[in-house]
């Protein structure tokens, strides 16, 4: 009798092991934990979900964009870069993908990200007729410049940044000077942040350049404006707008170039079906990502703390990314 019981127990244990193993597949890999808040949050959410939900084993490797990309490309490690802004590594990435070293698991793991022209939510509340940038450009009087009240003030990008040139070109392309605008150089990121948060704190109108996902955008619930003009092609953007008015005399009006963000994986992870299925569905809505960044900044939370906070508060989002079984395992682990 005892022997039989033992046998049953053994069988049960091995069955349990097998069933766990069935979801687990063999997934042990390294993931890049990049050095800005949204990337480290994503890496930690992925780690928690894949470890608790699918029994993977994941090691986080800290690093910046270039360093991470180079080692992924050359050494095949770390195996996953959750939030890779590919504009800066476009050429080598394309080559690596052609040669089958790197693969995109999903393009756009965060929605509504990228650069563009933003206004405060109060501006839109007061002026619901503002649908696009073009509408705003007709009303410089609503954004009076401190130093010349007859002009509207558009806050551009700090001196010396790449985006300074693009903003200067678009300022010309949209004929903003003729429409009564001045382009203000905020001088530094602190200046840009200060100008935006001052206006947002007081519910004033503000119109300027910024990018997402960032905690400031989330904190003040800033609104990205559609340009109302389609993207006028890479030749216009890369060959003219991005080079600035000194090189490019005749920029065409255009929407801001799309920042392409991808979750990039190596061959080793490419064959892990469950992991790839998860990455394929794992899309953070932009506003939620921004509010997570606000939480992390307010509480000086590390990526891991942020991940737990996200998983606890937004099950309606992440449960769609995983199987029911995995979701139950994750909820148990929280």
């Amino acid at each position, binding site marked *: 009798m005892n022997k039989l019981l033992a046998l049953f127990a053994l069988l049960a244990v091995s069955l349990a092991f097998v069933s766990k193993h069935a979801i687990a597949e063999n997934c042990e890999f390294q993931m890049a934990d990049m050095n800005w808040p949204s990337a480290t949050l994503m890496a930690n959410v992925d780690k928690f979900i894949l470890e608790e939900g699918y029994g993977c084993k994941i090691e986080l490797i800290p690093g910046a964009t270039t360093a991470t990309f180079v080692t992924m490309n050359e050494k095949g490690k770390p195996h996953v870069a959750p939030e890779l802004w590919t504009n800066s590594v476009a050429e080598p990435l394309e080559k690596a993908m052609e040669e089958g070293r790197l693969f995109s698991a999903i393009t756009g793991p965060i929605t509504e990200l990228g650069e563009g022209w933003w206004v405060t939510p109060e501006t839109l509340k007061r002026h619901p007729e503002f649908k696009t940038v073009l509408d705003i450009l007709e009303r410089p009087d609503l954004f009076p410049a401190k130093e010349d009240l007859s002009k509207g003030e558009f806050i551009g990008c700090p001196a010396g940044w790449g985006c300074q040139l693009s903003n200067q070109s678009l300022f010309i392309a949209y004929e903003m000077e003729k429409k009564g605008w001045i382009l203000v*150089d905020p*001088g530094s990121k*602190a200046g840009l942040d200060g100008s935006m*948060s001052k206006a947002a704190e007081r519910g004033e109108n503000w119109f300027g350049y910024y990018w997402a996902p960032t905690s400031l955008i989330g904190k003040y619930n800033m609104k990205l404006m559609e340009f109302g003009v389609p993207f006028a092609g890479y030749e216009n953007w890369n060959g003219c707008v991005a080079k600035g008015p000194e090189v490019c005399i005749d920029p065409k009006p255009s929407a801001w170039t799309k920042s392409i963000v991808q979750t990039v994986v190596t061959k080793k992870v490419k064959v892990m079906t469950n992991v790839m299925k998860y990455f394929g569905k794992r899309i953070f809505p932009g506003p939620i990502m921004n509010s997570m960044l606000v939480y992390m900044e*307010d509480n000086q939370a590390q990526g891991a703390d942020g991940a737990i906070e996200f998983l606890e508060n937004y099950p309606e989002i992440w449960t769609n990314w995983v199987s029911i079984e995995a979701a139950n395992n994750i909820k148990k682990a929280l």
Partner: protein
Amino acid sequence: MLEFFEEFPDMSRGDLRDFKKVIDSAFRSFSRTYGEAIESFFDPILWFLIWLEKLLLATPWPIIMLVIAGLCYLGARSWKLSLGSILTFALIGYLGMWEDTMSTIALISVATLLCISIGIPLGIWMARSDRVQALVTPVLDVMQTIPIFVYLLPVLMLLGIGKVPGLIAVCVYAMPPIVRLTNLGIRLVDKDIIEAAEAFGADKKQQLFGVQIPLALPNIFAGINQTIMMALAMVVIASMIGVRGLGIPVLQAIQNQYLALGLMNGLAIVALAIIFDRVLQRYGKRLQNYRKGPNND
């Protein structure tokens, strides 16, 4: 027990976070309530700055050069200095930095005047009262050593970016030397001389303006020199919060490693500093001409 000594008994992370949050949100609500009032308090200075900059930019360049040469001569009574400044400005204009230079001159002359007109009276007050000196000295220490963005962030929240916060940044950093050296200069005046003045029946006011300040002039002018140098050194920082001028190209150059652009604009700042300083120093020397004049010996 040992644990107490091994690890510093610090505030818990949560308490510390709440403590910081309370300060931050208190400042936020302060800025929301009084921001606009404070902003309009500074409006006259802003208008004056804008007016001066527009005046400098709208005046044809030959007139500006003549005025500068004339001011140099009035202040320094030196043809060499006038000629030197004309040549410097011609070079600045030729290298395409005229407009930025005019913006910088507008900011720096207002900043220097403000610093001197607040700094010298404050220095005199400090020299006459030990209690004021004890109070003001630590404030000056803070002004000179606190990292600039620590106080600029709240200033940005209150006033936004632009000329006034730039002016505040420059003055906070540039004012201490003139205050300290005025104080020092007056305190160093020989007690015997003051006694003599008293014996001749000079009242406090006569002592101050007739004896103490004239004798303290070398120190006061050393203070003015330091104030000007520091104000011009702050031009780049002022540009980091949206002040137009020579600082913007410098920032651009730093960000992109444009050596020539950085050097040109940097040297233009140096040239401005030297002209400002030499003119004022010569003027100061002329005020002290009696030191070598035969009739006063």
